[in-house]
């Protein structure tokens, strides 16, 4: 990990808002979007990996995501730019901007345990993505939202096993409506049973909020012509 990212991670874990703002401002002196790719994303990925390995706690992951989200939402509005073959369109900042071309939804099912969803939202927003947050809902209502909003990638965070099992109902309802978004899932039941993802008809499971970012990027690449 680069020294700058290491220092950024240390500032995040210490919840040193001043240092974090200084580093983002410094890295984004010419292009305010550069810190997203060079600082925020690698730092949040590292924090997520460390949590998966038992090196960091959930509270640290949550606070890191929240601090980054606060910072990034202060940046200029992230509006889509036309894609082209010019060199600039391949810059990290331009890649972040292109994230707006994918319709992403996020929800929990029948559950008021919202922290997992909140953490995924923070990491994705801090990485330049925009999401439709459907809050807590049931499979039928969620399927209707997904169809209405033409969602291409649907993220589902669950804590309880019964909620995880209801994803089957959601997939059935979406299939009946002729809508096939990629369903990405996360939460304790999926960590404790790697086969559960396939069982409920989801496309992939992530172990952490940083995993969600990686999965969304992969889905985005697959969906981009």
């Amino acid at each position, binding site marked *: 990990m680069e020294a700058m990212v290491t220092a950024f991670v240390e500032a995040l874990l210490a919840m040193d808002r001043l240092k974090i703002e200084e580093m983002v401002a410094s890295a984004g002196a010419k292009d305010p979007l550069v810190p997203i790719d060079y600082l925020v994303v690698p730092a949040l990925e590292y924090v997520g990996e460390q949590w998966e390995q038992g090196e960091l706690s959930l*509270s640290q992951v949550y*606070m890191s995501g929240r601090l980054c989200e606060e910072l990034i939402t202060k940046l200029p509005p992230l509006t889509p730019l036309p894609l082209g073959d010019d060199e600039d369109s391949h810059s990290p900042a331009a890649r972040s901007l292109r994230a707006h071309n994918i319709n992403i939804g996020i929800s929990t099912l029948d559950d008021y345990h919202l922290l997992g969803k909140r953490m995924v939202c923070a990491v994705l927003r801090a990485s330049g993505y925009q999401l439709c947050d459907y809050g807590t809902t049931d499979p039928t209502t969620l399927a209707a939202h997904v169809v209405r909003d033409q969602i291409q990638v649907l993220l589902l965070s669950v804590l309880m096993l019964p909620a995880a099992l209801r994803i089957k109902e959601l997939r059935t309802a979406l299939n009946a409506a002729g809508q096939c978004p990629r369903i990405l899932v996360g939460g304790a039941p999926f960590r404790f049973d790697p086969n559960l993802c396939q069982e409920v008809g989801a496309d992939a499971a992530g172990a952490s909020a940083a995993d969600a970012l990686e999965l969304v990027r992969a889905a985005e690449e697959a969906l981009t012509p």
Partner: protein
Amino acid sequence: MTSQRPASQLSPVMTSLQRVLTTLGQSEPDRVPLFLLLTMHGARELGLSIHDYFADPQHVIEGQWRMRLKYRNDCYYAFFYAAIETKAWGAEVIYLDNGPPNCGGPLVRDLESIRQLQPPRVAESPDLRRVLDAIAGLRARDGATPIIGVVMAPFSLPVMQLGFERYLTLLYEHPELFDHLMRLNEVFCVDWANAQLKAGATAICYFDPVSSQTISRPEDFRRRGKVIATRTIAQIQGPVAMHFASGRCVRIIEDLPATGAAVIGVSADDDLGQLKRAAAGQLTLLGNLNGIAMRTWDTAAAEQAVKQAIAAAGPGGGFILSDNHGEIPFQVPEETLLAIADAVERWGRYPLDWIAQDATVTD
């Protein structure tokens, strides 16, 4: 390799209480004690919905009684569901037909309203009284077998009282309000635990997932969760098991004897052998079968999981076989539970001399 020994070499058969007390004393009983922490399965035994089952303590008494006989369980588990505590505080409970009743929206939405909270009186809560009646009824029916009561730790209850995100904000940004809430929760936790002991519970399981290293940094646990647990457990008038509800604890295990807990509920995410070495005769480990994966185990998988857990933590006593979360999912079939019970009978008999000869459980 064989698990069969001449009858003369087998330990004399103990009662469940003798078995548990022996292992708590860090000695080997006749076999590894089995705590199948079953709650909702009692409804299935009686052909009732989960809602109707928990509505009447007589159902819970009968359900626990039948399940102990069927699965050769070494305890009765008087836990109804976690949200019963927040219901007593005034929150909503949502019933499901295939899972534990869940807490609805948070009780506290505005952190300042914590100042107006009052701990519920146990005797005035119809829900908590049903639990006490179930404990008393089980004790009247069986005077000897351990009955496990349950409380949520003051440090973990706010996840349901406030919602997790609001609680983390409270922890990091409002220390004075956090301290106030902890004082309220400690009063309730101690009253609730002691009421269950008075009704006939043998021990209390103190659920504290927020203290696990999965959720809190070890240094934060030492500053907060540990201090609160130590203060609270000291006021509970019976033995206490501290349970992290699937959260990891290997980095804090050396801190745990000081809390006063005698038993630690451990995660499938932790290395049971490493925990056993770290517990070093000071703590009894409870765990750590993977309850989520258990839904799809066949007989061979159940047997292998039981063997591995026993091989890692059984020798020398100080171990109770259980699941890793403190509640077995409703989706786990009876056949799997019977396979676990059979495997404990076959592989859990002391002395565990099969372990050294079995390549499937050794590195």
